[in-house]
């Protein structure tokens, strides 16, 4: 199959975006994180010494406040790095990358993810891998923020030259908005869903969103495997 020129360009842009993210994240890693961690280590040491030295209470209170601020900044940096760091897309296989994402989701939230890999999952193109990863990330985040339940099921399967990713919860559900055509939703809260649909379309795949109020939500994504 040959892709139209603009389609290929869009696929390239997706990969370049991930490379740019990688650079920004490395800058944050190499600069502020090291310095803040080092500063906080020194402050903690100082706090211990002041306790031993019977220093004025007010000093210790001030020091604890400064430490608290630095600790909070590091915490904020941790969640942005975790969310955005691209997981070595070109060198890692799809299943291990998705597993990593699930570990991370369980670590950052109090959710439980039931995870199944069915059969042999064939390799997919780099843009398709990126698409599946970012879609799972968005779907887990939606389930966490909107479904009102703690359990999510994720299944990935290889089926007849395609890879199929399903994400399901038994939460509160919603009425899916139209994602394509002239009626496609423009509402801010649906941007993520449109993004998912567009990512999949760019790699020649399909996305099906099944949900209704009170009925939970199921997202099924299929992308072609590498020939």
């Amino acid at each position, binding site marked *: 199959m040959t892709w139209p020129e603009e389609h290929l360009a869009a696929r390239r842009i997706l990969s370049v975006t991930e490379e740019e993210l990688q650079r920004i994240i490395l800058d944050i890693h190499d600069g502020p994180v090291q310095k803040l961690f080092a500063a906080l280590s020194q402050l903690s040491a100082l706090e211990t010494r002041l306790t031993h030295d019977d220093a004025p209470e007010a000093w210790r209170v001030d020091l604890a406040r400064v430490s608290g601020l630095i600790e909070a900044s590091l915490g904020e940096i941790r969640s942005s790095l975790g969310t955005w*760091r691209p997981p070595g897309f070109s060198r890692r296989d799809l299943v291990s990358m998705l597993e990593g994402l699930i570990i991370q989701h369980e670590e950052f939230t109090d959710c439980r993810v039931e995870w199944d890999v069915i059969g042999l999952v064939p390799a997919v193109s780099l843009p398709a891998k990126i698409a599946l990863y970012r879609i799972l990330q968005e779907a887990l985040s939606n389930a966490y923020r909107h479904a009102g339940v703690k359990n999510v099921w994720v299944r990935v399967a290889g089926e007849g030259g395609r890879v199929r990713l399903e994400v399901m919860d038994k939460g509160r559900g919603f009425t899916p908005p139209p994602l394509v055509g002239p009626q496609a939703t423009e509402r801010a809260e649906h941007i993520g869903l449109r993004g998912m649909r567009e990512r999949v379309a760019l790699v020649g795949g399909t996305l099906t969103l099944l949900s209704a109020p009170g009925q939970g939500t199921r997202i099924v994504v299929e992308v072609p495997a590498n020939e």
Partner: protein
Amino acid sequence: MNERLRVVLADDHELVLEGLRSLLADEPDLEVVGLATSGAALLDLIAQRRPDVAVLDVQMAGMDGLDCLKEIRRRGLPVRVLMLTAFGDGEAIQSALAGGADGFALKTAPPRQTVDAIRQVGRGYLVFPPAARKWMVGARAEPAPSGGGLSAREWEVLERLAEGLTNAQIAEAIGVSDNTVKFHLQNIFQKLGVNNRTEAAAHYFRTRGQNAGGGR
């Protein structure tokens, strides 16, 4: 009196080394016996100073922390390894686990947590975030728990321990890594409320009648 845990630190950010060293200087049970700013230097340091614990930055220029961990394991250097990283995401945790690290600490968490992790790893515990645990033993396929709240696999490990096998021998007998055995033991001790191997073995001999044929 307990001996102090001997610790070496490796990080290519000198600021971080300085900060951690300063923090560890106030801990009476921990002693920093060397600093390295590269993976290669760390390997020499471990060979010379024979530390109990190496704290290892994952992202170092040249030989990075994970390559260095691989080399430590390949050479069979008797040191426990705590990986220290700014990245707490799934990939970082997976790589540390797969490389056979004993623990994982974050530069985006308070440094006191790193100090606690050094201590825990030095005592032989595996220190990983809770979400990583179910991936440590490929535990998804683990059979349902048998008597005593132990899983069939844990019961099997306990049985071998009671026969007097070392961790390495248990690992070989049941076809898993040393780290996995340590992980099982940690859970077994916790579930049985015991503090050491002798108490665990005593528990086994006391209760094995109730668990005969257990495991399924």
